[in-house]
């Protein structure tokens, strides 16, 4: 595979993951970090290849999704690393509050099972710093969201870079 096609999404995906992990930056960038990283990765590809040709949608989608995937990989890695170091995260901290609310209600079997799974996840994180179920959940969630936002960023970047598109 052409290394030039991988490098811009890798760099931008890593950058996006770092920015979403740093407290404060996420407050400013919010939901625009991954899409902007995709736009930047298309810009970088243009610079690397020194071309003035318009970008086609296929390339834009490729760069967008790849940036999202790399962002997902690094974001999940940072999240799991922090969880492993601290043996806690926002999910573990929020669970007692959830349990307090739930104690007031009689749960059916399905909700009870879900609750015990969440409790198990929390216990694993507190005891070992890692929960496979949590890791899978967060990877899956990041994968869906970042891929979509990366793709949208790629399409946005294409329209933006190609300057004029009449619809």
């Amino acid at each position: 595979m052409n290394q030039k096609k991988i490098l811009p999404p890798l760099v931008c995906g890593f950058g996006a993951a770092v920015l979403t992990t740093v407290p404060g930056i996420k407050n400013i960038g919010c939901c625009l970090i991954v899409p902007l990283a995709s736009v930047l990765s298309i810009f970088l590809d243009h610079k690397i290849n020194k071309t003035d040709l318009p970008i086609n949608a296929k390339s834009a989608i490729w760069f967008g999704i790849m940036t999202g995937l790399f962002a997902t990989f690094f974001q999940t890695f940072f999240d799991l690393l922090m969880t492993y170091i601290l043996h806690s995260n926002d999910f573990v901290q929020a669970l007692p509050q959830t349990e307090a609310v739930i104690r007031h209600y009689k749960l059916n079997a399905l909700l009870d099972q879900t609750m015990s799974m969440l409790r198990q996840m929390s216990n694993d994180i507190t005891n070992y710093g890692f929960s496979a179920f949590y890791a899978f959940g967060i990877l899956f969630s990041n994968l869906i969201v970042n891929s979509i936002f990366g793709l949208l960023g790629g399409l946005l970047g294409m329209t933006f870079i190609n300057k004029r598109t009449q619809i």
Partner: protein
Amino acid sequence: MNNKNFSKAKLILRFVLFLLILVWCLGIISNVLISNQAVSAITNPILKKFYGTVCHQIDAKTFSINGHKFFVCARCTGIYLGALIFSTISLFYYPKINLNRKLFYLALSPMALDVLFAWIGLYNYIKFLAFGTGIFFGSIVFIYILAALENYFITRNV
């Protein structure tokens, strides 16, 4: 592809986009919509984590209805609502627009200035201002993305 099929394909694409954005927006306010508090208490941490991927979710910057917080901040709510409004409009009416960088900058600048001014402390964060600038940005960005999708999925087959 003849004109009739072309219009039909466009409409299907726009409808699919509308549905996706609608589901996303309903997810944001699901905390308000789910009346069963036990279900809500369990789904809350999961959805909060899910939407947390793309938003800081700071309580002070988030809308709430009857004490139930949205899962994204006011600015993000505006962006997605703007996209939803324009996706609804695009099902019935769509003007020919020349998309260029100026329009994008025009949409981005109020939001960027609001972020900058609140960040440097010129004024405190105003939810409704963030929401308003978000709506404007989200609606314009939706037009760009729709243009790109239609160019890719439909126009190339003509």
